[in-house]
């Protein structure tokens, strides 16, 4: 009898625990965040958090107002607080649902906020179990709340549009695909510094209703990168310099370069492919040195040049090599001289090859790097003029 009673008690307990509704959160009770903006608050020492929340009834299908909907696929609000968490809790004073982070696409920080330090931001979003680590992180010179509310491209939800911009960032090759995963890694690393994508608003969209207004609708665009030293932003990188950084950090394989025609005339556009950058560190006379070797294949994809492409092939190759070398040198110059910040992970490469020397240099690595000798070698092979025969361009 005792055994039966104990079994019943145990079974009842297990059923009660297994079927628990503890912590239950229904999907229709959540405010699903798709983008976050961070900037300094109005009061000193405060932070302003703006969030873009998906309005599920309006976000489905195409834009427009479905029955019972408002026609606006997102609901954007902002709040301030002494910390990010405090600001988010303050959002709860006027949002009817509880903020849910798991589907957030992007975190955008305003430049002034990034220059003040992002340690708390990284800590908050990595400590929060709901956030995905592949959430994109970017810096903007514009207002983040305006940026995250701007409908860009074909997507209904602005955050999703920015997400897709980042997924295809290697097509243009003008901004890094920086996410929380690699930001956290760089922040904690003893031998590298963070670098984040720069996004901005530009009047690129043309209204179908007022085509005469031309490109007057703001769109979000990828526009370079923001370099950091420690947790503080120290400056911007141009899109061209950012392409140089992408060879180091994202193993950028392809892209296009436009060069002047070697024999006068217009311009020649070349698409490089299979690019591979090799960083070779060395150590001489107590100083590190780096040799950068970039190899790539290339095709001529658009030509306004006079003469046959076959005849200008060697000169075009030299010009392309010079362009690519210029991207690399630009990135190196910013890392070594302008910002003295090792966002190219040269320290990692040096540390891996010279661990004992690294121990003596690591405490003043940014200064050491600024004095390091660097050599850039680019070798390109132009293999094709794509579908055209080389002589068709002759006048």
């Amino acid at each position, binding site marked *: 009898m005792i055994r039966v009673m*104990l079994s019943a008690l*145990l079974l009842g*307990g*297990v059923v009660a*625990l*297994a079927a*628990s509704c*503890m*912590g239950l959160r229904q999907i229709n009770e959540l405010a699903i965040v798709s983008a976050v903006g961070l900037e300094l608050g109005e009061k000193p020492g405060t932070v302003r958090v703006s969030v873009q929340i998906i309005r599920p009834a309006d976000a489905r299908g195409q834009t427009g107002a479905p029955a019972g909907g408002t026609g606006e696929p997102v609901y954007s609000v902002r709040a301030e607080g002494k910390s990010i968490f405090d600001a988010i809790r303050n959002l709860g004073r006027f949002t009817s649902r509880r903020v849910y982070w*798991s589907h957030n696409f992007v975190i955008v920080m305003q430049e002034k906020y990034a220059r003040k330090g992002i340690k708390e931001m990284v800590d908050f979003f*990595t400590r929060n*179990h709901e956030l*995905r*680590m*592949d959430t994109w992180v970017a810096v903007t010179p514009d207002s983040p709340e305006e940026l995250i509310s701007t409908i860009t491209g074909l997507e209904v939800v602005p955050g999703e549009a920015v997400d897709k911009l980042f*997924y295809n960032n290697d097509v243009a090759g003008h901004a890094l695909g920086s996410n929380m*995963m690699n930001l*956290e*890694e760089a922040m*904690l*690393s*003893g031998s590298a510094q963070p670098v984040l994508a720069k996004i901005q608003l530009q009047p690129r969209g043309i209204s179908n209703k007022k085509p005469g207004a031309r490109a007057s609708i703001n769109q979000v665009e990828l526009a370079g990168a923001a370099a950091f030293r420690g947790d503080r932003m120290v400056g911007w990188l141009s899109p061209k310099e950012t392409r140089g950084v992408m060879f180091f950090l994202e193993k950028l394989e392809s892209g296009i370069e436009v060069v002047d025609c070697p024999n006068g005339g217009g311009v020649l556009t070349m698409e490089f492919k299979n690019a591979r950058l090799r960083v070779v560190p060395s150590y001489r006379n107590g100083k590190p040195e780096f040799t950068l070797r970039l190899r790539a294949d290339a095709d001529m994809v658009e030509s306004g040049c006079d003469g046959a492409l076959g005849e200008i092939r060697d000169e075009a190759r030299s010009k392309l090599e010079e362009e690519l070398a210029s991207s690399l040198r630009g990135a190196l110059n910013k890392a070594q001289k302008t910002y003295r910040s090792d966002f190219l*992970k040269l320290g*990692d*490469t040096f*540390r*891996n*090859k010279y*661990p004992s020397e690294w121990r003596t240099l690591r405490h003043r690595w940014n200064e050491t790097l600024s004095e390091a000798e660097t050599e850039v070698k680019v070798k390109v092979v132009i293999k094709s003029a794509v579908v055209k025969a080389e002589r068709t361009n002759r006048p």
Partner: protein
Amino acid sequence: MTKTRISNGMFIAMLINLCFVKSIGVTQGVLARSVGQDMWIATLLGTIQGIGVIYLTYLVIRKMPDKNIMEIGESLLGGWFGRAIGLIVFVFFAAGIGPLMLTFVYHLQEYFLPEAPRVLFVAAAMAVGMVGCYYGLEVMARIALVGILFIFLLNALIVVGSVDEFDIRNLLPVLESGFPRTLAASIHLDSDWALSTMLAALIYPAAKDFRQRGALLGIVAIAASGLLIIIWSLLEGAVLSAEVTSQYTLSCMKLARNAHIGHFLQRYEMIMISLYSIPMLFEVMICLYGATLGAAKLCGLKTNTRTVLPAGIVLGVFGYWIVEDHFVALYYLERIWPWIALPIAVGLPVTMLIVQALFGGRKT
């Protein structure tokens, strides 16, 4: 109780299940805090030491292959010695519930149910553990077989989801912390296989082919555990970096958070917990089982059935006390548990071998 027979596969599966979850969950974070990117080397060194100790354990049992370590002690020096070993076994598994419970509770609570009270998780784990214990070794061994399937699936999934982010530069330079420090750090991995070798000391006689291939079974189990765990060491080091791994109590969950297959299958935590659940509950179950066997021997009982409930309450209360405070839990995990686990897991078979050498001929 040693008349139950389990297959060789079950025996190996039980030993793997018992050390896998904690090793990938919390031990890698501890190792990253100690030796950075050399954590995979510490794991490898720990595994080699584990192979040595399981062989020692085999040597102890080999002399009397139908008896577990407590019964052998009793045979050698009489009932008092058997009871003393029973007490040691009880203390070992009771202390072992701490790290296992923190692995279980923090996985579920911190990533899925942060608002649920901790007592819920502890009570659920102990309830399942008591049921398993009550039904005995064979039932638990079958659970371990299911668990090993889940472990393989989990490893395959995490490899596929993380391989895109794998950066071998994060594992370099090798042995930056130096060999002595890496070897010293491996005690944290040792404290994981200690549970497996102590379980082997209790269930070795039940393994089907113990007489023919006992040593091989134990060695295969520990080596396979090491290989399955080292995959996580390498992934956590190369994908997350040692610096990031060292920041987290549950570094495997951090890896799962980063993992993705294509654009659509993101965040593995839920899949991971599903696959984790059986090995994790098995660990709690076995800890309770070991404690009940020790308690039964200590109290002079013939079976462990009557000790299931009291031992469950003791281990539940202790486990709850450990997980209630994160700082206490981590201190216990890193500073106290290895110093309980290793002296017992290594010292007991060594002592038994000495006693066997001195008093091997005597039988009471």
